[in-house]
């Protein structure tokens, strides 16, 4: 994975596959603490202790289409290699919370990447129901709530190409704006 937006897409795919009806993502880039943190919380089916223990094992997956589950193990390896932290907790039937940090000025910390493209990919999942995204850069925030968009759209599909292109540009403009001063 070349950048953090691709990691985020991969993590949220896990939430969607766990039938989460609400997924909350918070990205925080902070110069003062020299940290980038990513939080992903979902109300999906969750994992028991044994499954959670195995979740970061690259040779474990609950999927039936293939026998490896590289996503979380790659993320753990990447953030720990950048003086960051990795933590995941989950409760069966309640949901999963993932929290990772990276040292912002570490040479191996991946760039943020195209978050708007990852969010669009998430929104085009047929089972997406609730999705909230908050991006904070040095205490300046941008928030996106899928519910707000669906309320505006009414009977119009989120998958309409004109709509999804608009949302992509809207998210990109706002993230570029709050990241304008990022070194």
């Amino acid at each position: 994975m070349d950048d953090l937006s691709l990691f985020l897409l991969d993590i949220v795919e896990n939430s969607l596959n766990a039938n989460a009806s609400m997924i909350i993502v918070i990205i925080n880039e902070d110069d003062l603490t020299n940290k980038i943190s990513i939080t992903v919380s979902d109300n999906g089916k969750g994992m028991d202790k044994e499954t959670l223990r195995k979740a970061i094992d690259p040779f474990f997956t609950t999927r039936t289409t293939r026998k490896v589950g590289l996503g979380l193990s790659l993320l753990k390896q990447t953030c720990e290699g950048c003086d960051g932290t990795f933590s995941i907790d989950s409760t069966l039937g309640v949901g999963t919370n993932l929290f990772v940090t990276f040292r912002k000025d570490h040479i191996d910390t991946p760039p943020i990447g195209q978050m708007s493209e990852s969010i669009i990919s998430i929104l085009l999942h047929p089972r997406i129901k609730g999705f909230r995204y908050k991006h904070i850069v040095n205490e300046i925030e941008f928030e996106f709530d899928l519910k707000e968009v669906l309320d505006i759209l009414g009977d119009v599909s989120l998958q309409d190409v004109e709509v999804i292109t608009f949302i992509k540009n809207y998210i990109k403009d706002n993230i570029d704006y709050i990241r304008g001063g990022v070194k």
Partner: protein
Amino acid sequence: MKSLEDLKKLRDQSLKNMTMRYQTNGTRVQIGMGTCGIAAGARPVMSKFLEEISNRNLNNVTVTQVGCMGECAFEPIVEIVEQNGNSTIYCLVSEKKVAEIVEEHIIGGKRLERYLLSGVKR
């Protein structure tokens, strides 16, 4: 900078031509977005499909994503499901191939045999 007010305006202006929720007719483009697909470049492929479809004003085509299709070595994988239910699976799809698939298959109705998973995997 765009705001959600602009989305309301867009909805009101283009409502007649927009795809409605639960609409089942038209062509569906499904892109494999498992870890394997993401790592192989499925996201830019999805963006390119959206761009091509938007640029050509194809109102009856929707793009959606699915999980791992079980053929990780051949990602990015794209399935085109036509209105009549016919399904075609393309593999190792690049941004360059997207324009050809849109032009020849989605618009022209002709499968691109050279990119089919069934052909490449043989």
